[in-house]
Structure formats: C-alpha cells, structure tokens
C-alpha cells in the first residue's frame, strides 16, 4: 500500500477583512434595527476579522465555485505538478451555488481539469475531512498518484437582512437563528495530496471520525421551520415562498446543544489515545476547528488530570483573523500554519474538526517529513 502526502496547500479569502463593527452594515440591518445580540455573539466567538464574498449591496463578488477555483489554483501554483495531471478531484462544501449538480463538477469545470476522477463530499464542517479521506484512500489503494482536495464555503448569502425579513423580520429572529449570522463567513482552501513525498511535506498518518447522530438531535440546520413542533422540511411546502415565510430556509444553531461538541471532541481524542494512535505528550501542534472561544469548561481540568490535555502554546488557530469558514476552516488553517514556516521535520500535527450539525467529530494526524 502506498502512502499519502500533502505536498502543497493554498487558500483564498474574498475581499478585505471585515471588522466586528462593520459586519452588520455589510449583512444589513434586519427590519432597519441593530441586533441586540451581535456584540455578545462576537465576544463569545472571539473573531476579530473575517471575509465575505458579498458586498454591501449584496452582490456576490465571488461565487462559491470561483473561490474554490482560486484556492485550488493558489495550491497548484506552488507545486511543479501541472494542473491537467491531477488524477482525483475531491471537493466539499455545505451549499454549492447550484443545488444540482454536485459541487465537484462545478469546480472541475472552473479549473478545466480533463477526465478527472471526481468526488463530492456532502455534509457540513467535517465534510472537508471526508473529502480528504476519499483522496487519501484513492492514493493508498494505488489507483491514482495524486489528488486535489478543494473545500469552499459561501455562507454569507444566507445572512442578508432580506432573508430574515422574508421569514418574519426582527421579531421572528431568535437567538438560534441569529447565532450563526455573526459566526460564519466565507473562504476556500485546497490541499494537493501525492502518493510519494515531495520536498518538505506532510505525511497523512491516519484519519478517523466518529459520528453521533444516532444519539443526539440536529444542532445546526437549514430546512426545518421555526416552529419546533412542525415536522415538515422546506421541501414539503407547496412553494419555496411558503417555506421561507415559515423560517424553513434560515440557518439555525441550537445553542443549548453546543456543549456536546466539546464533549464529543474529547470523547474521540480519548478513544484515539486508548487505541494507541494518539500520544498527546508527543504531539507538537494541534489545529482545531472550533467555532467559538467559549471553550472553558470543567472538561479541560479533567483532561489535564488524565494527562490528555494539549498546552495552550501547542494550539494553532487563525479563527480570530480569518473567521469561521465552516468546512473550509481546517483547509485554510493548515495553509496558514505552513506559511508561518515554523513546522520542523518530525513534527506531528493533529487536525481536529468537531462538527455540531449532527455531531460528527473528525481527526487527522500528520507528520512533517522531507523527501
């Protein structure tokens, strides 16, 4: 069985960084009134700046596909491998520009890669790891020698004031519906994987994920109406206009369930330690996609007590300046981490993506190697 190595990375963030006080101006005031929750939500998530692919007049400056293409091109520009030699294109996003076809098809067309083996992962934040997993598996079984993974997210279109107004305006927007408005933003990342190492690169040691959808209800969603007793999805209404009026096209986060994300993130790490795959003491860097700063909990004291904590100086995040770009976050985070140039040969990295939507937690273990 051959290996899998991340030999190049790239990312793309649209437009200038947008500071906390400018977010609502750009997304628009719902019903002409300022949000009472904005500063509280921004304080909790700790994000200072982020990027949007829509402008103040709500024109889309870059489509999701365009961002994906730009990130992929940035990644391939750093590699001697010609774009047309890419064997596998593995893509992920939460919502493509089109509902059909799959996002990967659109990205392939945008990149102009001929006769590629295509894969599109469907999900939310952890779909990035699913896309990487598909790429890694294809290399490991020896079917292909390289794979380009591209993950992009354009959520800001959901956050226009007009979307909330169509669902009933300010009075209809509760905390769960507004939470993600001041949390998510846009961006794209890409990794090139090859079956042989090339220069200084990252070996993919293992990928694991644990989904808990069987025991917990939906925590983040689009498609369910505001009324929790309503069982119809947005697709069951006579028209999309009716679904929108019922709030079924808004993105929501059931914030009461968010604690589970932390617990399940820890749960997975403990399983990996138990299995002997993960050694926290030997880990050099932790790249964790966490959506918010409100991480302080008793669990961290317990982790310290059981010898499974990672000291603060080993954590790497770009959340505060690049924002939370959902599935694209971990892709952009690794690109930023490598750009710092501090990774040494032999360093081990754990990438961790806990997804709250219906609780899937994913882990990737990487080692810096030199060909």
């Amino acid at each position: 069985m051959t290996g899998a190595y991340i030999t190049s990375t790239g990312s793309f963030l649209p437009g200038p960084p947008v500071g906390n006080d400018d977010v609502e101006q750009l997304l628009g005031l719902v019903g002409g009134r300022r949000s009472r929750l904005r500063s509280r939500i921004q304080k909790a998530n700790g994000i200072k700046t982020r990027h949007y692919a829509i402008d103040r007049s709500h024109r889309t400056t870059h489509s999701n596909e365009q961002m994906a293409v730009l990130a992929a091109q940035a990644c391939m520009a750093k590699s001697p491998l010609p774009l047309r030699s890419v064997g596998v294109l593995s893509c992920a996003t939460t919502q493509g520009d089109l509902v059909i076809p799959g996002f990967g098809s659109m990205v392939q067309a945008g990149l102009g890669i001929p006769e590629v083996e295509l894969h599109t992962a469907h999900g939310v934040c952890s779909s990035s790891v699913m896309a990487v997993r598909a790429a890694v598996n294809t290399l490991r079984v020896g079917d292909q020698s390289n794979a380009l993974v591209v993950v992009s997210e354009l959520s800001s279109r959901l956050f226009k004031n007009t979307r909330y107004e169509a669902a009933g305006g300010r009075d209809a927007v509760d905390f769960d519906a507004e939470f993600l408005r001041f949390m998510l933003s846009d961006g794209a990342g890409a990794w090139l994987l090859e079956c042989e190492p090339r220069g200084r690169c990252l070996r993919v040691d293992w990928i694991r994920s644990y989904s808990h959808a069987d025991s917990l209800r939906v925590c983040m969603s689009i498609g369910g109406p505001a009324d929790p007793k309503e069982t119809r999805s947005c697709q069951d209404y006579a028209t999309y206009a009716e679904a929108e009026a019922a709030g079924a096209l808004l993105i929501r986060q059931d914030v009461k369930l968010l604690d589970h994300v932390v617990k399940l993130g820890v749960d997975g790490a403990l399983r990996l330690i138990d299995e002997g795959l993960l050694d926290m003491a030997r880990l050099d860097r932790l790249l964790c996609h966490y959506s918010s700063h409100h991480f302080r909990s008793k669990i961290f004291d317990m982790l310290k007590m059981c010898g499974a904590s990672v000291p603060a100086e080993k954590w790497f995040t770009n959340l505060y300046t690049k924002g939370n770009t959902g599935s694209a976050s971990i892709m952009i985070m690794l690109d930023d981490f490598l750009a710092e140039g501090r990774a040494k040969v032999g360093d081990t990295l754990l990438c961790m993506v806990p997804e709250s939507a219906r609780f899937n937690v994913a882990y990737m273990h990487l080692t810096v190697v030199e060909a």
Partner: protein
Amino acid sequence: MVESVALTRPEVLSPIGQAALRQLLLAWFDFERRLSRVPVIQRLERGTFGPADYQRLLLHLRQQVIEGSRWIARAASSFDRDHTDVRSAIIGHAHDEHRDYEVLERDYVAAGGDLVTLRAQPRNPGSEALHGYLMYRASEPNPVGLLGAMWIVEGLGEKMAKDWAERVERLIPVGRDGTQFLRYHASNDETHMNKLYALLDRLCTSEERADDIVRTAAVVGRLYALQLEEVDVE
C-alpha cells in the same frame, strides 16, 4: 492503628490513575449518549416533556434515591482498617445525601403529585437491578470498584442540576420550588470533583483496580439508563 488523614486532591495522577480517568470519561460520555436515547429524557431534551412526565420521573427516581444512601453507607463499612481515610470520606458522603429523598418528595407534591402514591410506588425493574448490583458490590471487602459507581451517580447529579432542572422549569409551571432535588447537586461540584480525584489517586493503584472501577462505572451507567427507560414502560 493507622492514622486517618483527610484525602486531598493530588497535583498529578499516577499513570494508572490517568488511564482510569480517561476510561471513566469515555464511560461517562457513553452514559450521556445512552440517556439521550431514553424516551423520557428525549422528551425533556426535545421540549415535549409535560407535567405528567415530571411526576413520573420523580416517582421512579425516589426508590433509587432512598437506596442510594444505603449502598454508600454499606460501602463505607466494607472498607477495612487500612482504608480508614476512604471510609471517612464515604461516610461523609452518605451523611450528606441520606435524606435527599425528602427534598424529592416535596418537589413531587409541588408538581401536583400525591404523597401516598409516591410512597406506595415500588422499585421499577431498572431500580431493582441497580440497587441489587450496588448492594452486592458494596458488601464485598474493600469495594474499590464502587468509585466507578460514584463517578456516574455524581456526574448525573450534576447533569440534573445544570441541565435538567432548567429544562423542567422552562417546560412546566413548577418554578424553582419544584426542582429542589434536581438543583441540589449543583452547589458543591468542585468539592465533589476534588474528592473523586483524591479517591482515584488513593485507590486506583493497580491495573486490576483500574479495570474494576471502569467496569463498575459502565455497569452502573447501563442500569441507571434502564431505570429511566422503565419510566415509560408501565
């Protein structure tokens, strides 16, 4: 005579203690997911829990709450002279909790329940199994494994206080006066955790003991969930 010293939270746990704590955390997370699949808890978490649900929940918890202090007291008496510090800690614990059921009874009445019905309620099959298991384990010499039982029961107390009480108050018109039993456990979390760490450090001294503690936690978690599943069976 062995000198009795108060147990204190250690700075660091031994490698065996750390491994056991990791396993205990996993057992706890498994228990929590198991609870999320129990119908009455699902209703509580999904917001469809009504006054009748709350009465039934208390009705089915009462027996276990009464028996709870019994197994703790028996466990204390089963620790020999080399474990007097452990015995002191456990006796204190049993003393703290042995009249909790009176708080539960007041809540039940506040929620519109009838005390005669509550007192006449027999143990449900889950409570029978849980009580039987705990009393059996508590009767063994130096029942170190019961630390795993305390881990689950204490953890649940905290979950009730922090999560369930608030949900109950939001969903049914009882107010804080009617959730005193659920709320009770929140007051001294940190003391409880420090006591658990201290006991873990003191008792988890071999692989066998660690396995026993973790296994007991797993069994108690399953039996507790069974007790709550039975709330919907009658």
